Structures are given as C-alpha cells and as structure tokens.
C-alpha cells in the first residue's frame, strides 16, 4: 500500500483543489484530510459521516477555590502566566504541563483531560474518507494528524485498498512533520511566486530531513513563467521529480462552488488535461497498479 501526502509549504497554492481532482482519477484509494486545523476537503467531497469519535488529548489546570489558600506558588512557577491574580486559570494560556498541579501544597488544582476536537470515518462518492476537526484554539494538532493517518491506514488495510491519498497542512511545523513521517512520497503543490518558491524550498528541505521522497507540480504556472522555470531548476538540482505544470484557471473556484472536482465540473478542460498527465506520471513513480 502507498501513502501520498499532498503538501505545499505556502497556503493557498491549490493543494486541496488538486487533491480533489486526483481523487477523480485515482482508483482503489482512501481519502484522508490531515489539515485538521483548517480542513477544506470535505467541502468538495460532501462526506456522509459513518463514525464520529471525540479526540481527547492533553490536560488543563482548574483551581478549586474552596481549597486554595492563595499562597502564590502556582503563579510563581507557571511559565505561561496562565494563573490570574484572583487565581483563575486562563485555559488558552495553560500549556498543560501540570507543574502547578504537582506543587500546590493544598492539592487544590484539578487537571481534567481536554476534548480538543473530533475525527470522522465517512463515505463519499469517490471512496471512503477519514477526516477531523480540531477545536478552535486547541493544541495537539500533530497528535490528531497522526491519529487520522493511522485510522486511514487501518481502514485501507481492511478494505484492501492500494493508496492513501492525503491532503496535508501548510507550513513546516508540528502538523506537517506529523503528516509526512513514514509516507511513501510527498507531492509539493507550489505556485510561481517568490513566496511560493521560498516556502516550497523549506518544505522540500523538511521532506529531505525526514527522508521522504518528494515530487513537485507547479500550479498556476502561467502567472510567471520565469518563476516556474526557477522552481523546476531548483527541483532538478535537488533530485525532486517535476510532474507537471497546471495553468491558472478560475474553473477550480467554479467547481468548488458546485461541490465538485474539476473533472466532475467539466471533463474536457485544459486544466483537466494537465492534471491527467501529472497524475499519470505520479502513478508511474509511485508504482500504482
């Protein structure tokens, strides 16, 4: 079984739209949305949720006012200034380290587990899908990403599917690291802008750091041909396979508004041709049957 993670470095390069389009082309696959912080794939896939599970992770301190003697030790030891002058814990500031809980001489601090979000197993018209929703302002996104990937893998094994197609998060931090470790390959979707190139280079370094093979495709390539060539030159130098160029086209937005992939919206578009070529090369590189 192969696991492909679609990432970008920079946000808004078209990861999710391309990922949705590839879902129309790939066979025997499961879809996985690992962008748990701002998940969007469900807006095209319209999933019917089959199973919903709460995601619990980490703890937050809560001071029991009846037992607190306001000695001040917790406020002194908290490195996040999360305990106010009237001995209330700011749950947004609390890191969940438990130092106040441990050292409180009155044992006046509780430490309940957080419910940070939920994750779903769903059916879609393009196959099964595992996705999640991290609560706003919640932590532990990396753990939720790992969980979603594990569940997608389990489901793919039980259904004997060949491919896990995963929509990854932007950036290079904690959730991206959790998304790519141990994957068969990453597909970096970039755009021909100075920021697109800069962010692609950083996320390509990250993939190399974790020894995950990287491939690249340039979306909206015709907005700046010079930048497109620079990106492809960089990729070539680093041994990253360039899979193709996708032209700029408002069809992606039009399809999104209709809750469709670009192929469902229009089977004959120029963008569709470019995507087919890109997917074919990708399938060859991944040795998909």
């Amino acid at each position, binding site marked *: 079984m192969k696991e492909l993670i679609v990432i970008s470095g920079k*946000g808004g390069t078209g990861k999710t739209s391309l990922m949705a389009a590839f879902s129309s082309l790939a066979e025997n696959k499961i879809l996985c949305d690992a962008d748990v*912080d701002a998940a*969007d794939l469900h807006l095209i896939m319209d999933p019917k949720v089959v199973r919903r599970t709460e995601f619990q992770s980490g703890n937050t301190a809560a001071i029991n006012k009846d037992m607190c003697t306001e000695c001040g030790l917790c406020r002194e030891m908290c490195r996040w200034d999360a305990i106010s002058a009237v001995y209330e814990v700011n749950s947004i500031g609390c890191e969940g380290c438990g130092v106040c809980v441990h050292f409180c001489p009155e044992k006046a601090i509780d430490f309940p587990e957080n419910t940070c979000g939920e994750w779903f197993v769903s059916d879609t018209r393009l196959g099964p899908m595992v996705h999640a929703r991290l609560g706003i*302002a919640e932590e532990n*996104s*990396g753990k939720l990403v790992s969980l979603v990937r594990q569940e997608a893998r389990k489901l793919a094994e039980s259904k004997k599917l060949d491919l896990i197609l995963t929509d990854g998060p932007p950036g290079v931090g904690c959730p991206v690291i959790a998304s790519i470790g141990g994957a068969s390959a990453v597909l970096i979707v970039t755009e021909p802008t*100075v920021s697109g190139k800069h962010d692609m280079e950083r996320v390509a370094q990250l993939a190399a750091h974790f020894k995950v093979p990287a491939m690249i495709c340039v979306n909206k390539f015709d907005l700046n041909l010079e930048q497109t060539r620079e990106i492809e030159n960089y990729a070539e130098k680093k041994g990253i396979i360039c899979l193709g160029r996708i032209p700029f086209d408002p069809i992606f937005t039009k399809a*999104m508004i209709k809750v469709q992939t670009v192929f469902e919206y229009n089977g004959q578009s120029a963008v569709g041709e470019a995507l087919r070529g890109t997917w074919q090369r990708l399938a060859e590189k991944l040795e998909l049957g």
Partner: protein
Amino acid sequence: MIITIASGKGGTGKTTVATNLALSIGTKVQLLDCDVEQPNAHLFLNPVFERTDTVTTPVPEIDMDKCTFCGKCGELCEFKAIVVVGETVLAFDELCHSCGGCMAVCPEGAITEKGRELGVLQRGHCNGIEFMHGKLRVGEAMSPPLIKEVLSYRDPAKLTIVDAPPGTSCPVIETMKPADFVLLVTEPTPFGLNDLKLAVGATKILDIPCGLVINRCDMGDEKVNAYADDENLPILMEIPFDRRIAEVYSRGDMIVDVMPEWKAKFLELYEKIKAQLN
C-alpha cells in the same frame, strides 16, 4: 496599536495586505512577521537585516554525578520528554515544553537548563519600516516560543502590524493574543468562508474586534458577504481579481509601488480600522 493580519485559510493575501499597509503608512510603523514556519514578508519589503539572533528554549541538562535515578522527573513530565530507565536518564529535547517542572521536582538538584535552538530572529529596516521576523529551523515542531520572542519586540510608540500564520491552532492564537484589532483577509469561495468562520471564532475566544478584507472579491460567490452581514462584521476593503496584481505579487514587487493608486486605498483601510476602534 497592534493590528494583526490573519486569515484561517492560507494564500488569501495576508502578507500582501500587511506589507502594503505598512509601506503605505511608512512612518512610525513596525512589521512583525509571525508566520515563523513560512515567513514571506521580507521577500516583498527586502529589509536590510542588521541583526540575526538564535532563539532557544530551555530544556533539561542532567548532572549524572548527582542523579540518583529516583524517577520523579519522569513522573512529573506530561510530555514524556524525560524518562528514567534503570540507571539511565533519557531526555527527549524535541518533546520538551520548557515548563521547568523536572528541574523543580529533582530532590538532588541534578537538573539545570540549557538552550535548544528553535530558529532565528532577524531584525532590520526598510523604507522607514522597522522589520522583524522569526524563522523556524526546518525540522523543528515548536513554533509558539519563537512567535512569542518576535512579539516581544513590539514598540508601543509605533503602529505594530503583525503578519500571522494560517489556521486557528496554537501558533495563530499566540500571534493574535496581544492584538488590538484583527484584520481577517479572506476570499469569497467555499474554502475561504469555511476557514474565515474558524478565524472569526478565534477572535471571539480572545475577545478582539475584527474586520474583513475580501481579496479577489469578484472570483467566487456572495456567501462571504452574506456571512459578514449576518455576523455584523465590517468589510473594510475589497480587492478585485486583477492579473496585474497577481503578476506583481509573483515577482515579489509591492502593489503600492507598481500601482500607486492603491496607496490611498490602503491608507483608507488604516483610517477605517482606527474608526472601528473608536
């Protein structure tokens, strides 16, 4: 005053708005790029960096001569960043949240702290703007302490414009916390709206007033405008899709330099933000 530019969804134009707004104002202004995973503002403003400092976070250093392997540090640590196995102490620095608990609980005083490198903080100037950003080391997972460090350089005597990372989890919250006003840059698409709702939720949790900039306002549908109406969110600026703007951006140029008519529009945006706060 601190204006933080955020979005929920990536690629909506946060950095475009932050940099062009700063350049239009031009004096007594600082720009803090807190998207430390992927800082981009410098690519457009081209500041001359005068200082580069390594930013570290404290992690435990164990004096093995003093350690009795009692295991109290491992019991306390919520993040499994320190473990005693037999007559060995294993410290996993990359899991450590720097709470100092292990050092405080050690009965032998065997634990001190050393710095673990998170990334760099760079400071400089460009066209009268004081510029600062953090750059997370590639492979490093923990961005909030670096963001906090960038924000510590805010100057109350100046207008501070903060470029936030995308999303609504811990790095974004850390970035938004000190803001007087959050400017949310969105696009009128289903993805834009979905992520805008999350970002508005974050400003509500933090109780910070916010307003919208709708970018590529003619490429999508009407649902973002309808949502803004329903939620009583002021739309402070609309930027139509213009291939020239996309090309200016792609080269790393500034809209207000190449299309000077935009300077007045960004100054008007600033006036509208100030009016929101009064």
